[in-house]
C-alpha cells in the first residue's frame, strides 16, 4: 500500500513538479521555505488543485487530470496537521475532537472513542478548555487527536514542531515518533530542519525551487545527497565546484587541490562536498597544508575556519567542526579527508 504522487502546477513564476512514492512509514519532504513542500501537501489534501498529474492513495485515485478525477478534500480521508494546528478557537477541546467524528454513528461510540483518544493523548480533564488555554504541546496533541479520530488513510504533518519552543521540541519529537509508528500507515511530513527529518523519517524527499530532487531512505540521503541543494539541506557546510580529472579523482579549482574520491566519478559532476565534521588531522589521504583563520565557540563544539594554502582568496573559507574536548593544543599544519567522505554532487 502506498501513496503515489506525480503533479505539476504552474503558478506563474513558480512551477511545482513533484513525483514520488511513499510507502508505509514516515516520508519527509525536506526543503527550504518556499520550495513547494506545503503546496504539495495541499494538492494531496485537495485544498489546491494541480494543473496536471495523478495522485493515488492505497489504490484509490484522489486526483487524475486525464480521467478528470478530483475528489473533494472531504472525500479524500487525508489527515492534515497544520503548522498552527488550526484548532477551532470558538470550540472546546471536546467539541474540536468531536468535529473529527461527524461521520461516526451513535453517541456511545463517539464518547468511547473520545475517551480513548483523550487518554492516549494525555488530554484528560482538559475537555472544556478552549484551544487558547492549552499549552503548545497540548494543542499539538489535540489537533492530532482530532485528526486520528477521523481515521484518515494518510497523515500529513506540516512543520509540526515549528510553533513550539526549542526546549519542548526534542521531547515532543520522541513522543510524535512513537505516535506515528502506532498510526501504522503512510505519513508525509514537511520540514526544513534536517535534524527533524533525520530523527523522524524512514525516507526523505529533497525539494528545491518546486522540483523534487531525490527520494531515498533517510540514511542514504545524508550519506550521498547527490546534488548541491540536497547537500546544503542535509547540512553540508563545504561545497565547491569541481570537475572530473580521473576515474576516482576530482579537481577543486577554488581550493587549489585535487581530491581522491571513494567512488568512481560519473559524468556531469558539478561540485564536491565535505561535511565539516569529516576533516581529520590524522587521515593519510587528501592531506593538504592549511592556514587557520577564525575560531567560533559553541556550547559543545568548535567551528574552525581555515583556507587551503593554494585557495582562491575570493572563495569562502572551509569549515571544520570538532567537539570541544578534542581541540588540539597545536593546530595541525595539514588536514586530510577520507576519500569515502567526499560527496559527489551532480548537476
Amino acid at each position, binding site marked *: 500500500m502506498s501513496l503515489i504522487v506525480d503533479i505539476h502546477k504552474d503558478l506563474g513564476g513558480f512551477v511545482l513538479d513533484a513525483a514520488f512514492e511513499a510507502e508505509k512509514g514516515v516520508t519527509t519532504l525536506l526543503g527550504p521555505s518556499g520550495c513547494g513542500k506545503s503546496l504539495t501537501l*495541499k494538492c494531496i*489534501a*485537495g*485544498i489546491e488543485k494541480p494543473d496536471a498529474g495523478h495522485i493515488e492513495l492505497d489504490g484509490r485515485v484522489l486526483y487524475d487530470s486525464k480521467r478528470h478525477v478530483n475528489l*473533494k*478534500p*472531504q472525500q*479524500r*480521508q*487525508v*489527515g*492534515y496537521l*497544520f*503548522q*498552527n494546528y*488550526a484548532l*477551532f*478557537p*470558538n*470550540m472546546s477541546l471536546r467539541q474540536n475532537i468531536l*468535529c*473529527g467524528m*461527524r*461521520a461516526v454513528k451513535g453517541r456511545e461510540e463517539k464518547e468511547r472513542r473520545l475517551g480513548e483518544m483523550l487518554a492516549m493523548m494525555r488530554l484528560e480533564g482538559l475537555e472544556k478548555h*478552549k484551544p*487558547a488555554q492549552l499549552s503548545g504541546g497540548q494543542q499539538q496533541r489535540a*489537533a492530532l487527536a*482530532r*485528526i486520528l479520530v*477521523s481515521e*484518515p488513510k494518510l497523515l500529513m504533518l506540516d512543520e509540526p514542531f515549528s510553533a513550539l519552543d526549542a526546549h519542548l521540541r526534542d521531547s515532543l519529537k520522541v513522543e510524535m515518533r512513537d505516535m506515528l509508528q502506532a498510526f501504522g500507515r503512510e505519513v508525509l511530513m514537511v520540514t526544513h530542519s534536517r535534524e527533524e527529518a533525520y530523527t523522524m523519517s524512514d525516507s526523505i524527499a529533497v525539494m528545491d525551487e518546486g522540483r523534487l530532487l531525490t527520494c531515498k531512505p533517510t540514511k542514504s540521503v545524508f550519506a550521498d545527497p547527490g546534488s548541491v541543494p540536497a547537500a546544503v539541506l542535509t547540512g553540508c557546510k563545504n561545497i565547491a565546484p569541481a570537475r572530473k580529472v580521473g576515474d576516482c579523482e576530482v579537481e577543486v579549482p577554488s581550493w587549489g587541490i585535487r581530491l581522491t574520491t571513494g567512488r568512481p566519478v560519473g559524468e556531469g559532476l558539478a561540485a564536491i562536498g565535505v561535511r565539516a565534521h569529516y576533516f581529520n588531522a590524522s587521515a593519510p589521504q587528501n592531506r593538504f597544508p592549511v592556514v587557520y583563520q577564525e575560531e567560533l565557540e559553541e556550547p559543545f563544539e568548535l567551528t574552525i575556519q581555515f583556507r587551503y594554502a593554494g585557495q582562491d582568496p575570493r572563495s569562502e573559507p572551509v569549515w571544520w567542526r570538532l567537539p570541544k574536548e578534542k581541540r588540539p593544543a597545536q593546530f595541525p599544519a595539514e588536514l586530510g579527508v577520507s576519500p569515502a567522505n567526499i560527496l559527489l554532487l551532480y548537476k
Partner: protein
Amino acid sequence: MNFFEWLGKADLFPLWNSLRIAAISCVLVFFLGIFFAYYAARLPRWLKGILDVILTLPLVLPPTVCGYLLLLVFGVNRPVGAWLLSHGIQFAMKWYGGVLAASLVAFPLMYRTARGAFESFDKNLGYAGQTLGLSNSYIFWRVRMPACRQGILAGTVLAFARALGEYGATSMFIGYIEGRTATVSTTVYMLYQNSKKDPAVLYWVLVNLLISTVVLLVVNLLEARQKKVVKA
C-alpha cells in the same frame, strides 16, 4: 411641556416606523452583506475590484443621489416600478420603500466590515475542517462565522444605526406622509421647517440621541463580555 409630558402625548408613529425600517433593513443587509463579502472574496481579482466599487458606492454617494437612483428604478412611472405596480407592489412613497432606501445606504457598512473580518480569517481553519470531512456549510456557520463574530457584530450594529438615522435617500424615495412614511429623521426636518420654535424638534432629537447611545452601549457591553469569555 417637558420631555416626559411630551412623550406621553406625542404621536410616536415616526419612532415605531424608524425602528421597524431599521430592524428589517438590518436583517436584509446582514445576509446580503455576508453573502457578497463571502463570494466576492472568491472571484477573480479584476471582477472583485469592479464589484467592490459598485457595492461600496452607496457609502460615498450623497444619500439624496441614492434616493434619486431608487426613484429611477422603482418610481411608479419607470418600467420596473410600473411593472411592479401592475402586480400590486409599490415601493415609492410607502413605508416599506424606506426599507429599500435604508438597506441601500447601510449595505456597504455591513459588506465592508464583514469582508474585513473574512479576510483576516485563518484559511487553515477552513482547510482543516474540510480535511476532517466537515461540510462547507457547517464550516461556514460553525467555524468561520463564530471566528469572525466581532467584525460581523460590529458591521450589523453599524448598519442598524445607519439605517435608523437614514434621511437623504428616505426623504427622496418615500417622502414625508404623517402617520404613514414619517420617520424620526424626516419628522425632525418637517417640524423644524414648519416652526423653528417647536420644542418637539428638540424632543425628537433627544429620542434619536437616546437610541443611538443605547445601541453603541450595547455593542461595547457585548465586546467586553466576549473578551471576558475569551480570557476565562
